């Protein structure tokens, strides 16, 4: 990977990290409500996977998707406005943190049903196949989703029909409070995905460059007609499952051990070693990211909310008479 490539990954990861930290503050201040799931610790997955896609490709994600949306290029301001419930939000304030959409960037959300987006990703790829469009759909989901029937049905279907889907499993070892080994009889998730005839392998999800390279290989394979691929991206969330979670089920020592492999600092160290980042450069970048977040927050805060009179818009195109009532 070129120096600029790694440096871009770092910028993306830093934007995500600082954005998530700001979200914590905004949540505590009551500006963001509802469920809030942060991806602190998992930035290498977001940055690496999304960097390997092109603009025509599609992305289907989960409720833990701030990082994916940012890495896809969805403007920070529209994300924060969404979480503030403003009409300028990327879903006009109708989705919130868990349902970030941007059709113009083929970012198909933000799904709060574990595994619920996986069949949809298969269908997006099917539409491309039927039109012979050389596009790929990346589908991100957690380790918990691998226990759902929808995951298994979808892998079989994608493999059977040879569809260009890259299944990206963010294995952070926990589904809420349930550790991998407490819910999966076979914890080698790539091995299980492989049983469907899907090319599958595990990747160090704390190494953004490795994630990007693995995803690029998977995307190339799928785009070239080689069928779907499955990536088990081994990572860890540094914070609780959501803002509601007291995080009583994890050993402090375990969390601390993983923090030693902080993906942001790992890449920073590599960049520094390669002479691509020094203290001044880091400081400059931090300041630029801080400014971007400040400006996004200001704009989101200043944005209007949607009038209640518009409550029943966007339910169906032809408005239900009784809904409009």
């Amino acid at each position, binding site marked *: 990977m070129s120096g600029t490539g790694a440096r871009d990954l770092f910028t993306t990861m830093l934007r995500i990290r600082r954005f998530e930290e700001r979200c914590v503050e905004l949540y505590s201040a009551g500006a963001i409500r509802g469920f809030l799931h942060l991806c602190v610790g998992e930035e290498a997955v977001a940055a690496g996977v999304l960097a390997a896609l092109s603009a025509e490709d599609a992305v289907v994600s989960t409720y833990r998707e701030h990082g994916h949306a940012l890495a896809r290029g969805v403007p920070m301001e529209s994300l924060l406005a969404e979480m503030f419930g403003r009409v300028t939000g990327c879903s006009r304030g109708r*989705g919130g943190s868990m349902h970030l959409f941007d059709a113009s960037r083929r970012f198909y959300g933000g799904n709060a049903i574990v595994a619920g987006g996986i069949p949809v990703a298969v269908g997006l790829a099917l539409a491309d196949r039927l039109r012979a469009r050389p596009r790929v759909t990346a589908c991100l989901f957690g380790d918990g989703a691998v226990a759902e029937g929808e995951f298994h049905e979808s892998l079989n279907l994608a493999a059977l029909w040879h569809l260009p889907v890259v299944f990206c499993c963010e294995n952070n070892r926990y589904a809420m409070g349930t550790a991998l080994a407490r819910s999966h009889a076979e914890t080698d998730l790539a091995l299980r995905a492989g049983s469907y005839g899907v090319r599958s392998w595990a990747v160090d999800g704390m190494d953004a460059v490795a994630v990007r390279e693995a995803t690029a290989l998977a995307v190339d394979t799928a785009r070239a007609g080689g069928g779907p691929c499955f990536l088990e991206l081994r990572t860890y969330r540094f914070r609780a499952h959501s803002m509601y979670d007291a995080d009583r089920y994890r050993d402090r020592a375990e969390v601390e051990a993983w923090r030693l492999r902080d993906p942001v600092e790992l890449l920073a160290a590599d960049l520094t070693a390669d002479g691509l980042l020094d203290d001044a450069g880091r400081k400059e970048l931090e300041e630029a990211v801080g400014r971007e977040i400040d400006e996004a927050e200001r704009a989101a805060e200043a944005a209007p909310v949607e009038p209640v009179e518009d409550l029943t818009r966007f339910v169906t195109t032809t408005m239900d008479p009784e809904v409009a009532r």
Partner: protein
Amino acid sequence: MTVTAEPRTLTFREAFREGLREALAGDDRVFLMGEDVGRYGGCFAVSQGLLEEFGEERVRDTPLSESAFVGAGIGAALGGALPIVEIMTVNFAMLALDQIVNNAATLRHMSGGQLSVPLVVRIPTGPGRQLAAQHSHTLEGWFAHVPGLRVVAPATLEDARGMLATALADPDPVLVFEQIGSYGVRGELAADPGPVDLDRAAVRRAGSDVTVVAYGGTLAPALDAAAELATGDLSAEVVDLRTLRPLDTATVLESVARTHRLLVVDNAWRTGGPGAEIVARVAEEALDELDAPVERIGAVEVPVPYARQLEEAALPSVGRIVEAARRAVA
């Protein structure tokens, strides 16, 4: 295109198949997928011959994965295709409920109007074939409960043939509940039936003494009952709802304003069923028009049993409709 100058007789199965064939022939974005829709010819032979005519890409046999292939239909619709997904029967639709309720119905709204899901799901349904509880469900009311979906129930040959095209032209997800019991029924179709709408209920038989509201599987028995009542000098008006969401309340209210009596018939359990919704709306908006308590027929609150006499006792019938109509005007 099957255009003939004369009216013709055909079965509902053939009418549904014509609708499918015209959809596939008319727009190459349209494709059909579901369990056994291709090689087998459709569980009820509705899609017989379509695989041979349109090929494997456009008539796709799926694995037994209701959630995945309904979800894939949603994704394909997002991706610019016009999928027709068949769920073999409504009894298996529960395995796809998540995709229908959490994705198809919500994506437009949750995305603030950015996304459209122009998906059609065909769902054969209907009790009364001695198949016992797990194969005799009537659940269209569940789906009609959900904003974001359109739910239709073709009960005439015109609708059987024409509703699919209108549903495909709708940018929103449409669930088409087809009556399994109707597939073999033969009737006459106008020479050029033309397009049908999915918005309005229809008065299938005019009458002056009582309004009988039915749809889907209860339309035929309601019409038979009206014919029987006519021999006893009782004039029943039969309204076919056609669409359960959005519900055309106006047509029902207009009829009640003429007859001042109401009988609602559906195959669902009465508790929380579509019939309850009709009665509630009439009570809300036209209570003054009613000259008698409302009559309501639904399935008896029991899992539909296998044995013939028990099943018959559990379901609406011409006899029960006739009795209820007589009570309403007594």
